[in-house]
């Protein structure tokens, strides 16, 4: 069972071909681009959702921060759709791979930091020292703030990976337990099944929330630095 539990997380290759590339590109098919003023239902629904999300997310930024609108919107769409597609049976979720999440987190975080250093150097460096600290504590606090700055991309990536992986693992385990319990004790199996249903609802929420949190934090780091 141990080997079976983790086989759904290995990078999919079919006869040596990296199918993972196709799987990562698959969500883009589900978002057609609008071609007319009044589009079909799918595109209109997606347009409405994107406008709702973008207005809420970009309200806190100034003009310079709002140039990142495209990046943040495509980020939340990609992570949300990839996580939701991972809830289908037997599917592979690319966001369970730490490599991919690091690849998303580090460039975005580095972009915000470099933007801050280039345009508002003094203010960016001033972030390292909170206001009103007693003078003897300053060296230690600068060190702590530096560490907390450099841990931001790692935290972004690991948060997303751990949440999605843990959710999938829990569903596998509880689903296996439900199947095994149906022959031993039907009522306990029913309780386990209800737990599984609740967990699935949670996973839907987590899929969307994680996308939101990732994007929100990137936008927060951006806000600090523009």
């Amino acid at each position: 069972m141990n080997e079976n539990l983790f086989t759904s997380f290995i990078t999919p290759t079919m006869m040596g071909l990296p199918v993972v590339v196709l799987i990562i590109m698959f969500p883009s098919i589900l978002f057609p681009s609008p071609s007319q003023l009044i589009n079909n239902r799918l595109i209109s629904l997606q347009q409405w959702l994107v406008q709702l999300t973008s207005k809420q997310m970009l309200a806190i930024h100034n003009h310079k921060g709002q140039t990142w609108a495209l990046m943040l919107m495509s980020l939340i769409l990609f992570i949300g759709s990839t996580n939701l597609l991972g809830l289908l049976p037997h599917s592979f979720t690319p966001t369970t791979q730490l490599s991919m999440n690091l690849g998303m987190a580090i460039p975005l975080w580095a972009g915000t930091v470099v933007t801050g250093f280039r345009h508002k150097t003094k203010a960016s460096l001033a972030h390292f020292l909170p206001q009103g600290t007693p003078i003897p504590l300053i060296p230690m606090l600068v060190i702590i703030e530096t560490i907390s700055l450099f841990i931001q991309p790692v935290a972004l990536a690991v948060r997303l990976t751990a949440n999605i992986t843990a959710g999938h693992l829990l569903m596998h385990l509880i689903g296996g337990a439900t199947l095994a319990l149906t022959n031993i004790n039907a009522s306990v199996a029913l309780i386990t099944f209800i737990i599984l249903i609740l967990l699935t609802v949670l996973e839907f929420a987590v899929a969307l929330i994680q996308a939101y949190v990732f994007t929100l934090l990137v936008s927060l780091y951006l806000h600090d630095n523009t």
Partner: protein
Amino acid sequence: MASPVPVKEKKLMDVKLGELPGWILMRDFTPRGIAGAFQRGYYRYYNKYVNVKKGSVAGISMVLAAYVLFNYCRCYKELKHERLRKYH
């Protein structure tokens, strides 16, 4: 066997069974041709099921069902050993 219209330009439904191997060999297998085939297939599905006035959930759910089937075929090798009981 010689037909008035050249075999290459006929649509698949008009090609006679004997001419089928020749028709397949004359298809465009360059990367550009294959990309064109994917594009034509995509737009054919899209215009039939999604880009309509009253599109329903069937349009995307067929795509998702095909995705599930594709992933099942991908993992079949590990899945075929799973059994609910040791002895049936």
